[in-house]
């Protein structure tokens, strides 16, 4: 729906009015922007309403940015819990992270967010002194995609491979748990395409089947300490051909379509909210035109539409959806403007009623103001108002409840009763982490046994993690074949870039022809992937000093010690040129704080430091060459 159509569609609805029943995301954003300087609390109100509107990427992006600019403390007034949420992932999560803060706000959480470096989820969780743990997260979201799973296109030993991969993930959970934080695991959305076509379903070893089996195993293994977001279901609902937009993967390593991120954020926040005890516990239902078609007080018991015909069947399906939620543990209540006798009649006498009176924990049918009844229902059931979800077909009643009781969640049913059931089942804030107490205990015992096994059998520290990657690097002087990629990296690398000097292709070619210049690139591959040309160094010899002009690395391989291998090579080059020292310079930019201490970490001593830059030196005659531990370097 375009901006134009949205404005058109909402003309009759008093857009922007506090009473608007279904404001579009665009209207909510405008209201929030207008209010942001005048009244931040009102801005928060509109940002929360925006989360319930039909999402677009652009509005969510703007809304998350607006939220980030609101004064500290604004969000704590609108929430009842706080959380420190770290997102570590296998793809670009820069858009997702601020959206998650927005979604958390809607779910009742005042969230502080941390975003891990690109693709470094294992290093962050395995490294005891990682920035992740310094952040002291309450929840660590593993925002990972199917590409991070180490299955081949076809597995010859499916059971063993499944076991190994399951243990890779549960090991991460167990380590995070030792640090007192909960994991929120995104399960793996499957692409829905397979080279084996329909044959794939028969063969356990196809990647598609292996991923499904892995999701299932993850579900079995996750005890009370690991929360799950079922991304395969979200992707299916969104449409897999839209969820997986390969153009954005190739351009920017976006594994989830940007307009699917709002839904991913909403569901991730809802699961965390459930863990924090914020899940809704009680559904309060209107009756006429909500549970059946028509008005029972006027149409009579025989006149209401229920059970037969397209409309009657839709109401039956809605009642069955409600019963499904009751089965899950939700409490049901009724709040209707009716004579009590009329309201009770269908429950006791209508043959097609699915809901019976004993399904309903609190029944209120009278002519009083609905907010008063809702307060009484909450008291009677000993629940807070914020545990209630009010479900009504009537926009006026919804507006009254929303206005009088902002703590009660109001579910705006669509106009067509055929869509009621789906609207209720898609409501995300019923998320509880467990189904029953016994269920949790059973899983806990199961997991305790498994944990011992997996800790015995698998990789648990960063050292073995790096070794098990079996990394191999090719390090060689620049050549024509690799020049386009080298020029590209020098032109666009921001984060892992010590000096950010944007040399042109012509300048680089002149360095290549100058014997005083050392120019090397690094290509990296490991057991699982070929990362291609990912790092570049340029250095100039000045008598006994090799001066590093440019040192940069693609952020897709941060945390793998590739920079160490490249420095080791520079130290060999320096010795070949009879240099005794290597000099490195760090030039500060807005984006490269990541590498501020890189030279220190590799044994360089600080020579000078001012606000713009720091200069470091490594004394070869004292310390000998730099040695790299984890990467086998192939000469070329």
């Amino acid at each position, binding site marked *: 729906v375009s*901006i134009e159509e949205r404005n058109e569609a909402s003309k009759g609805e008093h857009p922007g009015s506090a009473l608007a029943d279904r404001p579009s995301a665009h209207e909510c954003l405008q209201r929030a922007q207008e209010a942001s300087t005048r009244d931040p609390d009102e801005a928060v109100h509109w940002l929360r309403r925006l989360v319930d509107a039909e999402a677009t990427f652009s509005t969510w992006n703007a809304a998350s940015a607006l939220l980030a600019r609101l004064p500290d403390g604004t969000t704590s007034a609108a929430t009842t819990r706080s959380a420190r949420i770290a997102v570590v992932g296998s793809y670009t999560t*820069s858009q997702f992270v601020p959206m998650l803060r927005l979604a958390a706000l809607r779910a009742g959480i005042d969230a502080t967010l941390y975003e891990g470096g690109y693709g470094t989820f294992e290093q962050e969780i395995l490294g005891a002194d990682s920035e992740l743990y310094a952040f002291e997260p309450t929840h660590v979201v593993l925002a990972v995609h199917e590409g991070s799973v180490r299955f081949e296109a076809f597995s010859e030993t499916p059971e063993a491979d499944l076991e190994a991969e399951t243990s890779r993930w549960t090991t991460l959970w167990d380590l995070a748990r030792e640090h007192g934080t909960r994991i929120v695991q995104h399960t793996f959305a499957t692409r829905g395409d397979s080279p084996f076509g329909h044959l794939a379903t028969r063969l356990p070893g196809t990647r598609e089947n292996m991923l499904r089996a892995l999701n299932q195993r993850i579900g079995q293994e996750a005890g009370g300490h690991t929360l799950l977001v079922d991304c395969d279901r979200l992707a299916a609902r969104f449409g897999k051909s839209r969820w997986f937009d390969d*153009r954005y993967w190739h351009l920017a390593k976006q594994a989830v379509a940007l307009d699917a991120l709002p839904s991913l954020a909403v569901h991730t926040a809802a699961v965390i909210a459930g863990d924090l005890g914020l899940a809704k516990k009680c559904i309060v239902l209107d009756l006429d035109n909500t549970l059946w078609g028509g008005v029972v007080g006027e149409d009579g018991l025989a006149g209401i539409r229920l059970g037969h015909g397209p409309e009657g069947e839709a109401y039956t399906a809605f009642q069955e959806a409600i019963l499904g939620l009751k089965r899950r543990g939700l409490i049901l209540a009724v709040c209707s403007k009716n004579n009590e006798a009329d309201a009770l009649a269908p429950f006791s006498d209508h043959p097609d009623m699915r809901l019976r009176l004993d399904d309903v924990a609190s029944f209120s049918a009278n002519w009083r103001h609905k907010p008063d009844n809702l307060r009484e229902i909450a008291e009677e059931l000993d629940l807070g108002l914020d545990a209630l979800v009010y479900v009504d077909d009537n926009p006026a009643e919804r507006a009254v409840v929303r206005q009088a009781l902002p703590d009660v969640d109001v579910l705006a049913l669509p106009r067509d009763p055929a869509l009621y059931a789906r609207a209720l089942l898609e409501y995300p804030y019923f998320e509880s982490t467990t189904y029953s107490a016994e269920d949790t205990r059973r899983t806990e015992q199961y997991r305790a046994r498994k944990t011992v096994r997996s800790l015995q059998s698998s990789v648990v520290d960063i050292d073995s993690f790096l070794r098990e990657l079996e990394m191999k690097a090719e390090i060689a002087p620049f050549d024509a074949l690799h020049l386009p990629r080298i020029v590209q990296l020098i032109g666009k690398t*921001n984060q892992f870039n010590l000096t950010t000097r944007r040399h042109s292709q012509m300048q680089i070619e002149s360095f290549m022809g100058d014997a005083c210049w050392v120019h090397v690139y690094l290509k990296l591959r490991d057991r699982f992937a070929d990362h291609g040309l990912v790092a570049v160094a340029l250095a100039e010899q000045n008598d006994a000093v090799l001066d590093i002009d440019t040192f940069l690395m693609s952020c897709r391989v941060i945390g793998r010690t590739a920079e160490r291998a490249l420095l080791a090579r520079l130290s060999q080059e320096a010795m070949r040129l009879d240099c005794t020292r290597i000099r490195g310079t760090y030039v500060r930019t807005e984006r490269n704080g990541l590498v501020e201490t890189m030279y220190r970490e590799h044994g360089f001593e600080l020579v000078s430091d001012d606000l713009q830059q720091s200069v470091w030196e490594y004394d070869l005659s004292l310390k000998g060459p730099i040695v790299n531990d984890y990467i086998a370097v192939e000469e070329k």
Partner: protein
Amino acid sequence: MTLDARVETVFRQVLAAPDLQLQDDMSGADLPGWDSLAHVNAMFGLEEEFGVRFVGDEFARLESVGAVKEALRRKGVPDPDGG
């Protein structure tokens, strides 16, 4: 709503710059906070708003705001006021 206004709204939202005034001769370098992330966000925001898909160079580079509008017109996006 004109094409100009719709494009401007998208850029305001994806760059989180509610007061941005677009000119056709602006390129990425003239836009606030422009980087590779902003580029991706802008491309996606435009595809979402206009229901189109960019290909090749249209997708990988933003030559200028005018070029983006031209690409949109080529794809059949109506322009009530201009063109």
